[in-house]
């Protein structure tokens, strides 16, 4: 497993101070979001706890002795939640599930694949989607079962799919 490649911003001290200039802050937050998601994906981090966040390696760089302060971390997490990459487990917003790709995006990818392989108006099992041979080249191959269901639910809300239950298995019909 190769070492996670830190982006150049990680060694730039001002990166760890929330910029007051609105335009600069937008760029800064973009960089933070992609950093957090990339790091989470590489290190297989699925959950973030706000209280423990300050000690997480992604939010601090001891080589330049800088760390993102707690309010900064909160701003970054809120931004992630807004983009669909973070889902809070409870209302108090102390814990959240991290999706390096948002559930919406997964849903869109799966639907795209369904369209490309002319599976519209047919039924597939969930097993087929994330573990079947047909999807071997796809990114969502090997996707975690819970996330797959969430993605399909998102499609359901958008009116592009319908989840079904066949006793043991679960399936989905693309519309």
């Amino acid at each position: 497993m190769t070492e996670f490649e830190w982006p150049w911003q990680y060694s730039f001290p001002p990166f760890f101070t929330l910029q007051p200039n609105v335009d600069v802050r937008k760029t800064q937050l973009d960089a933070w979001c992609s950093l957090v998601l990339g790091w989470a994906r590489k290190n297989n981090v699925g959950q973030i706890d706000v209280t423990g966040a300050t000690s997480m390696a992604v939010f601090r760089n001891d080589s330049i002795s800088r760390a993102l302060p707690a309010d900064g971390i909160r701003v970054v997490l809120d931004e992630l939640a807004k983009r669909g990459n973070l889902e809070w487990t409870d209302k108090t917003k102390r814990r959240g599930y991290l999706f390096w790709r948002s559930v919406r995006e997964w849903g869109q990818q799966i639907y795209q694949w369904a369209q490309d392989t002319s599976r519209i108006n047919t039924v597939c099992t969930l097993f087929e989607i994330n573990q079947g041979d047909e999807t071997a080249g796809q990114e969502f191959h090997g996707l975690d079962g819970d996330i797959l269901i969430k993605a399909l639910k998102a499609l359901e809300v958008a009116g592009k799919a319908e989840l079904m239950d066949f006793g043991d298995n679960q399936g989905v019909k693309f519309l």
Partner: protein
Amino acid sequence: MDRWYWCDSSLTFGEIVASTAKSIRLYDGDKKTTFEDGHLTLTNLRLLWRHESQSSSLGLHLGLVALVEEEPGGFTSSPKLILHLAMPSHTQPAGPVTTSHNSHIKLCFKQGGCSSFHQGLQKALTDQEWEKLTVQTTPTNHQTNKRPQGKTIHTGILGIERAIQAKQQQTNQNISRAFEDLKNLMDLAKDMVAISKSISSKMKERSGEVSADDTTQFRSYLLSLGIDDPVTRETHGSATTYHHNLAREIANALETPVKEAGGVMLLSEVYCRINRARGLQLLSPEDVMNACQVMKQSNQSIHLHTFESGVQVVQSVGLDQEKVMKDTVEALQRYETLGMSAGDLARECGLPLLLAQERLLQAETCAEAVRDESSQGLRFYPNLFFTRDAQ
């Protein structure tokens, strides 16, 4: 402690209660007595101490009090008043103690109220009403030929003469006290008349350059008398000719120095420089500020500029903000690795610290610089978020 005597709690002729205090303990010298938790009454003639359970009180003639001191309380002790007493007279009625070594007593205020009681006591001691009362009652005493209190003679012809003299003194005192207030007023008025004369003469000589000191003194007198300031000075916007002339003078004097300093100069520096240049007849900071505020109106070559943070500077009209920004960015780039603090910029460009700080903040607002806040302080870096391609 032998100066106290038993008496009943009623007030004698001409006696008025001045103040009271509760929970008082009496001390003989520095030793506690058993007379505690009592009610203390100060009248214009005496001190009366009474315990609730008793009907009779302990009285102390105020004429015996030579000096009063206050002893502030600490953690373990309550505030006390120390009364230094004179020798008692022979005619004093019997008291709780016949003889005592100490010539001072203490009153311990367990529940406070010490300072206000002290004030009341001081007033009673300065008024010395008992003297007046004894003076009034002595003419009737001399017929019985009673031996008088103390050494002063109240009987016979000497007694009568003394009484007349005392009465005269008293009347004089009363009159002078009544007119004291008027005396203060007359003194103030004398000063004010002199100042107003000087101001009017100065105004006649030359218009505008009136010394600010005289006018401020005049205004302060007027205010102290409660008269509304008739000469309304500027606040914001409208200004007198004085300030316009002053603005012209400052602009003429400081145009070159400001340009030499890079087109920007702190208001505090302007104040110092203009006063140095004038030598005599110095200006108040308020006058300098007001004069600078009207500079723009009178189209001078320099004018006042206030930054967001409240810092005020005087700028040349033709100052190129772009160039200033470019200079700041260039300086920043030289400090790319470690960041630049306000002090660094000040040293680099020869600017005052406040000005350097303002430049960096301005650069930040224009997205040319980004800040880095850490335990080591506030430093600025060039805005690499924009200039460098993000990965």
